[in-house]
C-alpha cells in the first residue's frame, strides 16, 4: 500500500527520475534484511527460553516441584533444592528495594522540585549516572574491603543489644545479607532515580503552579500533589528496580556468603539464585549443570514476570499523561 503511493510520486517527478530496477531490488533486499534483524530480537528471547529450558528438562523431570521447595544442594546425592536461594533472592532484593527506593525517589524529588539550581543539579545527576557506571565487581571489591569492616562493629552492637529480635539474630562474621543488600541498594538507586525523574518530568507544569498558587508549602505541593500524580511512574520505577536487584550477580556472589540457609537475620550469610549460578557453574559436572539450568529457568521466570509488570505500569503511565501512542 505504502509502496504503491510511493511509486506514483516517484514516476511523476521528471527531474530526478524513477528508481531503476537495480535500486528497487536493493531496496527490497535491504528492507528484508532489516525485517529479519527485528524478528531476530524476538527469536532471541524464544531461543533463550528454548535452550535453557531444553537443558533444564532432565533436571525438571527428575526433581519436579521438589526443586523449588527443597532446601539442600547436594551434588553427590543428586539432591537439588533452591528454596533458600529463592528466599535469599527475594529477601535481599526487597531490603535493597526499601533502601534504594527511598533514596532513589528522594533524589528524584531533589532533582526535579526546584531545590537546587541547574548547575548543582547537573553535578548530582552526574553522580547518579556515575553510580550506575561502576561495574558490579568493583562494588563487590569495595564491599569486601570497605563496607564489611565498617558494618561489623554496628552489627555486633545491634546483635548484643537487640539479639532477641530475629532481624539481628546473628553476628556478621564476614560476608552476609546486610552488606549485600546495601550494595544492591546502591546499584539500583540510579535505575529508580532515573525512572522517577521521568515520572516527575511528565507532570504538566501547571499542576505544580496551581498547587503553589493555592498557597501550599513546597512539601505540601510535593506530598499532596506531585507524589500522587506521579504515583504510577514511581511504582514502575520501584518494580523495575526490583527486577534489576533480582538478577544482580557479581557483587552478591562476593558479599552474600553463599550459604544455603533460610534465616531472617540481616547479618547471616545467605545465597541468591544468581550467585548460586555464578559460584557453582564453572566447576559443575553434567548432572549439576542440568540442575543449575533449572535454577536459571526459575530466575528467568521471576525476572521476566517482574519486568513485564514494571514495563506494563510504565506504559500505562505514559498513556495517562500523553494520550494513547
Amino acid at each position: 500500500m505504502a509502496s504503491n503511493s510511493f511509486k506514483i510520486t516517484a514516476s511523476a517527478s521528471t527531474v530526478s527520475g524513477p528508481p531503476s530496477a537495480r535500486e528497487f531490488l536493493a531496496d527490497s533486499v535491504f528492507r528484508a534484511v532489516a525485517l529479519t534483524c527485528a524478528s531476530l530480537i524476538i527469536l532471541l528471547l524464544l531461543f533463550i527460553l528454548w535452550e535453557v529450558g531444553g537443558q533444564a528438562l532432565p533436571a525438571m523431570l527428575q526433581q519436579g516441584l521438589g526443586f523449588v521447595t527443597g532446601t539442600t544442594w547436594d551434588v553427590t546425592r543428586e539432591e537439588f533444592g533452591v528454596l533458600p536461594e529463592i528466599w535469599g533472592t527475594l529477601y535481599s532484593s526487597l531490603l535493597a528495594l526499601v533502601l534504594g527506593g527511598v533514596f532513589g525517589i528522594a533524589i528524584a524529588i531533589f532533582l526535579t522540585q526546584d531545590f537546587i539550581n541547574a548547575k548543582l543539579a547537573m553535578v548530582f545527576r552526574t553522580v547518579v549516572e556515575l553510580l550506575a557506571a561502576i561495574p558490579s565487581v568493583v562494588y563487590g571489591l569495595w564491599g569486601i574491603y570497605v563496607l564489611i569492616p565498617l558494618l561489623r562493629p554496628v552489627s555486633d552492637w545491634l546483635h548484643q543489644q537487640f539479639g532477641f529480635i530475629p532481624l539481628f539474630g546473628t553476628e556478621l562474621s564476614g560476608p552476609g545479607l546486610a552488606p549485600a543488600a546495601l550494595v544492591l541498594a546502591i546499584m539500583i538507586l540510579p535505575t529508580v532515580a532515573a525512572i522517577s525523574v521521568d515520572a516527575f518530568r511528565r507532570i504538566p507544569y501547571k499542576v505544580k503552579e496551581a498547587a503553589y498558587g493555592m498557597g501550599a508549602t513546597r512539601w505540601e505541593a510535593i506530598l499532596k500533589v506531585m507524589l500522587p500524580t506521579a504515583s504510577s511512574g514511581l511504582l514502575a520505577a520501584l518494580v523495575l528496580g526490583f527486577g534489576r536487584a533480582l538478577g544482580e550477580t557479581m557483587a552478591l556472589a562476593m558479599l552474600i556468603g553463599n550459604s544455603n540457609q533460610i534465616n531472617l537475620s540481616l547479618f547471616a550469610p545467605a545465597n541468591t539464585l544468581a550467585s548460586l549460578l555464578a559460584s557453582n557453574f564453572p566447576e559443575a559436572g553434567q548432572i549439576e549443570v542440568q540442575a543449575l539450568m533449572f535454577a536459571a529457568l526459575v530466575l528467568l521466570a521471576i525476572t521476566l514476570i517482574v519486568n513485564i509488570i514494571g514495563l506494563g505500569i510504565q506504559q500505562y503511565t505514559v498513556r495517562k499523561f500523553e494520550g494513547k501512542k
Partner: protein
Amino acid sequence: MSENNMAAAPAVRLPRLERQPLELRALKSGFLTGLTWLIAILGSVPLFSVIFMLVTQGGARLDFEALTALPPAGFELGGGFGNAIVGTLVMVAIASAISVPLGILAAIYLAVLDPYSRVAGTARFVAKTLTGFPSILAGVFTYAVLVVNFGYSALAGGVALAVLMLPTVVLAAEEAMKQVPQKMTDAAFGMGCTRSQVIWKVVLPTGLPGILTGVMLAVAGASGESAPLLFTALFSNYYISEVLEPTASLSILIYNFSAMPFDNQIELAWAASLVLVLIVLVFNILARIVGRPKV
C-alpha cells in the same frame, strides 16, 4: 473606580499573606527539605568512597608492570594484568561486531520501515524486557549454545556480551532515528529516493550522533560486565592467541583476586578495578561527546 469599590466593600478578614516561618507547616516543610538534602548527600557518599579507594589503593599499584605483565601465581610478587586488558578489549570488540550492525538494522525497521506493525511492537517490547535481563542468564544461554559444543572461548564471551548489548543498541538507535525530522525524509521521498536510499542518505547520517551515543553506552556497560564471562570465556594466565581458547578479562581477574589471601593479588585487584572503571568512563564520556548536537 476599582479602588473605590475595594474601599467600599465590607471589611473581610484577610488571611495573613506574609510568610510565617514558625508555623507548623512551614517547619515541616523545612525539616523535609533538610532531610532531602541529607539523603542526596548520603547517596553520593558511596561513589566518592569507591573513587577514593580506587585512586589510593589502585593508583598506588598502577605502573607499567601492572599494565603489561601476566598475573602472578600464589605467593609470587609483582605481576600485572596486561592479558586481562587485552582480553576485555577483544571480547568487547567481538560483542560490538555482532550486536551493533544487528541492532542498528533492527532499529531501522522499528523506527522507519514499519513502526506500527506487529513485529515492530513485539520486538520493541522484547528489547525493553531484555534490558532488565539478568546478565548471568546471558552467560547461561551462551553456555548452553556454544560452550557445551565448542568449549570455553573468547568468542563465547563475546557472544554473551552481545546478547546484553543488543537491546541497548536497538532502543537507543530507534530513539535517535525517530528524532530525524519528518520534513527531511519527506523531501528525500519527494526527490524520488527509494526507502533504503532515504535511510542510507538521510536518516542514518542525521541520526548518527544519537546512534553512536547508544553504542558507546552499550560498550561501556559490556566492558564492566563479569557475570556473563564467568563460564563462557573463563580465565587464562596468558595473552590471547586465538579467539577459540579461554580468555582473561579484567572483571574476572578482579573477582578471582578479591577472594585471595595474598596482599599482592588484592592490590592488583584494586589497580585492575581502577583500569576497568577508567575504560568504562572513557566510553561514557565518548558517548556524551558524540551525542552532542553538531549545529
